[in-house]
């Protein structure tokens, strides 16, 4: 091996990027060549210096505002901290629009594309039955219930002791779980799908509630009461 090639390989050698053969050749060369041995020793010193003076650790940015800025772009909304705090009606409109499109699609499919019916039946036979989804649904409701009870028992007044602390990550996880179950049950079990729809609304309210808004827990409590969500959950569990 010539010294120029050896010099090129020293960097990769120190990073552990050489295969066994090249490593052996380089080590053999360095044992016999004083200049390359000195180059290796010097490169090691440079690496040691770099390692002992690593750049400052990355600071912790404000992840929430970073996400809010990303979200405002990807959801097509202008970045505006003072945007309406409870865009619940837009969800309802969006949900209604999707439901209308789905119903229209089903009607068109049923009457205009009759030959496709067999395929649809085959696909639905392959999909999980409501009974097989019952344990997942039950466990999902058990996951959500303690949080709903917190809100249902919320009384405005003593703001310090009555503050409800919710882990946003958990709420988002529950929302996704809710969405998946709703998709699987929408045609098989309308009662469960309706409840999941209500839960979807409540979870979105919880996920989007501003921490400073003292009215938010009361509004969520009202939503739970108005829709009789806890009652529906009990009924569904007894079926």
């Amino acid at each position, binding site marked *: 091996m010539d010294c120029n090639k050896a010099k090129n390989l020293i960097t990769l050698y120190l990073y552990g990027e050489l295969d066994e053969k090249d490593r052996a050749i380089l080590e053999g060369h360095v044992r016999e060549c004083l200049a390359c041995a000195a180059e290796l020793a010097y490169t090691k010193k440079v690496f040691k210096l770099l390692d002992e003076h690593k750049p400052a650790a990355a600071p912790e940015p404000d992840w929430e505002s*970073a996400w809010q800025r990303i979200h405002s772009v*990807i959801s097509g909304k202008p970045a505006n901290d003072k945007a309406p705090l409870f865009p619940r009606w837009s969800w309802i409109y969006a949900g209604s629009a999707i439901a209308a499109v789905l119903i229209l699609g089903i009607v068109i499919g049923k009457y205009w594309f009759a030959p496709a019916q067999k395929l649809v039946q085959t696909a639905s036979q392959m999909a999980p039955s409501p009974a097989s989804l019952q344990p997942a649904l039950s466990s999902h409701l058990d996951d959500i219930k303690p949080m709903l009870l917190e809100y249902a028992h919320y009384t405005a007044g003593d703001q310090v002791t009555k503050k409800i602390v919710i882990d946003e990550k958990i709420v988002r996880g529950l929302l996704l779980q809710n969405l998946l179950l709703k998709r699987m049950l929408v045609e098989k079990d309308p009662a469960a799908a309706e409840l999941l729809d209500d839960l979807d609304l409540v979870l979105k309210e919880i996920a989007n509630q501003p921490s400073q808004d003292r009215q938010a827990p009361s509004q969520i409590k009202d939503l739970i009461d108005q829709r009789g969500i806890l009652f529906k959950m009990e009924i569904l569990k007894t079926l």
Partner: protein
Amino acid sequence: MEELSLIRLAQEGDTLAFRSLFDENKQQVFSIAFHYLKNAEDAEDVLQDTFIKAYHALHKYSPEKGVNFGCWLNRICVNASIDALRRNKVREAHSLDTEEVVDVRANSPRSNPEKTALDKEIRGKIDQALNKLSPKQRMIFILRHYQEYNTREIAEYMNSTEGSVKKHLFRAVDTIKRRLRRLIMENDYGL
């Protein structure tokens, strides 16, 4: 929930699923951008740029192609960081963040003022040496030396070949060695 399910939901426009993907990968993306740009504010811009680009290009991402989502994001982040540096939007000199950390260390009861001054000087020289690298060399060096990715991974992030990455890495280290030679000799560092 599994990453694949989240990706599928995000591809359908579910921003909540995308939020989960953001939470899983934000630290890594920010770390690459910060170590490359040496400035928290610019790194935050790159973080946002990366996730916005990723969201809009999500329909092109296919896990079946064998590239994992983190790797795909890193690729976007690497390009966004290099673009940011090239557009000269970043402050190349020592960032305030680095200075602040040095000051905090200097104020600790166990600190030695002479050693702190020397450390600061050395960090300054290292920064100067890194600033002499081309944007590509600098990224390759930072990914290899500080982020500890191997050259195969770096080639994936940079849409390059492993051979080309090794060549750039060698040149980057060679430049740094030349720039630091005087400092090492003067301080008899590591002997």
